[in-house]
């Protein structure tokens, strides 16, 4: 293929490149419109889509690299990297980077995005009662949820490490991570289910009754404590994640240190706090930040369990409500930006860590 080795600019190569560009835009444009407007059987659409996804995307790269190689070596070597990263950069730019900037811009405008209000939206979301509840609940989620996940994860990792059935136990605790929050919501809604009368089919109420207590509608009554019953779902799902990572870290604690301290007469609890915890402190920090980021954006659980009613609103559900129900793009954008600001420290930590690892 690499026949054009003579130096200088080649008109022919440029024409080929333009031809490939236009052909790609045309062909994929047609496929784009076809998929957009097609009303085929979903299974057939899926098969065609996979074909397009694999072959189509592959062909884009193939034809472009082929065209770029027609250029003189000196130029093609410079252009080629952009062919490789091009699609990724275009998709990211269009659907993530630019929208983020546009959202920031919209957050300074009113509900219908036609009047500049400065920081008005930001002041409003901290003073509006519903939004303030959302912020308070999010803090509750982040604080209680993360703390419990990390504590349970650590405890179970330690126990599993010393038990005789580590693999099975870890599988059981980890399994909820695989399922969706919506399914988990159904599972726990059933656990918390309350019906008037003597016969309770919800597990929690049945236990409460067996212990002589009064059955309750756990997720709708008892505000603001009902939030805790929702947070339990997060704990149930995310503890497995913390556990698996801690488990790997604990196995990295050198055996001779543990043996030596045991010989010195240190008890297991003392060993745990004085040796294991300091040894895996970086891991604890990583797991904590990861769960915090995850919890900040919590949405599905609340949506399925209460729809944000009964004082269980969080920022992400309030975002959805402002955006879709009240059509208030100003508040919606501002809430999204508040979430972004909340994860900003993590972004900075990530970047710093990446630089430290000698990424570049």
């Amino acid at each position, binding site marked *: 293929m690499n026949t054009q080795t003579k130096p200088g600019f080649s008109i022919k190569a440029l024409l080929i490149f333009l031809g490939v560009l236009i052909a790609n835009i045309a062909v994929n444009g047609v496929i784009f419109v076809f998929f957009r407007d097609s009303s085929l059987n979903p299974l057939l659409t899926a098969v065609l889509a996979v074909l397009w996804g694999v072959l189509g995307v592959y062909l884009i790269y193939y034809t472009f690299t082929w065209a770029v190689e027609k250029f003189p070596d000196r130029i093609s070597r410079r252009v*080629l*990297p952009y062919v490789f990263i091009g699609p990724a950069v275009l998709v990211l730019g269009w659907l993530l980077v630019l929208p983020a900037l546009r959202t920031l811009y919209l957050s300074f405008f009113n509900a219908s995005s036609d009047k500049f209000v400065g920081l008005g939206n930001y002041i409003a979301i901290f003073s509006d009662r519903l939004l303030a509840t959302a912020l308070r609940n999010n803090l509750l989620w982040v604080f209680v949820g993360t703390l419990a996940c990390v504590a349970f994860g650590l405890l179970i990792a330690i126990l599993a490490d010393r038990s005789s059935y580590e693999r099975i136990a870890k599988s059981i605790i980890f399994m909820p991570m695989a399922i969706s929050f919506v399914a988990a919501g159904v599972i726990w809604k059933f656990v918390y289910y309350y019906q008037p009368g003597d016969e309770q089919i919800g597990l929690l109420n049945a236990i409460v009754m067996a212990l002589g207590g009064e059955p309750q509608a756990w997720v709708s009554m008892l505000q603001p404590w009902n939030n805790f019953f929702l947070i339990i779902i997060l704990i149930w799902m995310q503890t497995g994640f913390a556990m698996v990572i801690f488990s790997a870290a604990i196995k990295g604690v050198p055996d001779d240190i543990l043996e030596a301290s045991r010989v010195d007469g240190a008890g297991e609890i003392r060993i745990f706090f004085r040796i294991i915890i300091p040894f895996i402190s970086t891991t604890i920090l990583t797991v904590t930040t990861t769960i915090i980021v995850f919890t900040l954006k919590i949405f599905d659980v609340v949506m399925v369990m209460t729809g944000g009613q009964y004082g269980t609103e969080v920022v992400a559900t309030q975002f959805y409500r402002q955006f879709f129900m009240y059509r208030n793009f100003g508040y919606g954008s501002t809430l999204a930006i508040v979430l972004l600001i909340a994860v900003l420290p993590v972004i900075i930590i990530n970047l710093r860590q990446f630089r430290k690892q000698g990424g570049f």
Partner: protein
Amino acid sequence: MAGKKKRRSKKWIVNIVLGIICFVWLLPTLGLLISSFRPAADILETGWWKVFPHQEWKTKDTIQLSKDVDLRGPIEVNGQTYTDDQLKSGVMQDGKRLTWENRRAREISVQDQGWVGSSKLTLDNYKNVITGKEYTIKNADGSESKEKGTGLSQAFWNTLTIAVPATVIPVLIASFAAYAFAWLRFPGRKTLFVVIIAMLVIPIQVALIPVLKDYTSLGLNGSYLGIWLAHTAFGLPLVTYFMYNFISQLPKDLFESAFMDGATHFTIFSRLILPLSVPALASIGIFQFLWVWNDYLVSLIFIGNQPEVQVMSMKIADLVGSRGNDWHLLTSAAFISMLMPLAIFFLLQKYFVRGLMGGSVKG
């Protein structure tokens, strides 16, 4: 030595405590699974744990009190006297239990303890939730009513239609980009990669409003293409980062010798890098697939309420909203949506865990 012995003796405590935790962890899912096989009326009548054999009081006999017995005073039954309250909560007599069967009609039931286990299990819930056809259902009071099926099979195929391309496309695009970032030198490389790292934990909410506006003007709302592209974009930073970590660790001489043979970057990538990256591709592919499969927010925003393209998570969330007490539907529907993740979890656990660990930075 003494320490070791002591530890061994403590092991049974660890085993028991861990066993209890595991049991508690499994219990909610177990309840869902068992309930999904119970007849609709049974689910609402008794708790799911009643399917296991357990001892229960069963009425053997009834005693009819005469009309002139004062229920407020002591009541004489078989030669012994009881108060009204005692009979309300049940009272023992000669190994049998006496309790009101019907206080108005002055009937006392004499109950015996016996083993019962409801073995009435059925696949009807699954049938009803999968099809979209009408079916009849027996109510708790014995009456029958007609209901329309949920049509979850349609949603299942929709979810698959969305999830497979939304996994393949980003993984392919990201691998090309990761290769360029790892092994090619070009201006802007550093800046672009820093942007990708910064995008790792970005809440997708910041993108939703503008993207929805663009989609509306392009006519992409509620289309497969729109949701593939959305998932591609939201998954790309993580997949690129994950693949970069893998591809940049490959030995350098691999590339050099291939270059010597006159291979182009494209051939190196497709003949050498992709086959070598299969474990990494599998791990991150599984993560992205499950992410899309379990997604609710992105579908909710970009699919909206077009029933013909709705995914399972939306269908189930709708069921929770509209049929919140119909546990026969909810339990079986939720379990169907869990089948794919659980199958992947148990069959491909190694890749699954690795992908999840690598993917954990995504929010």
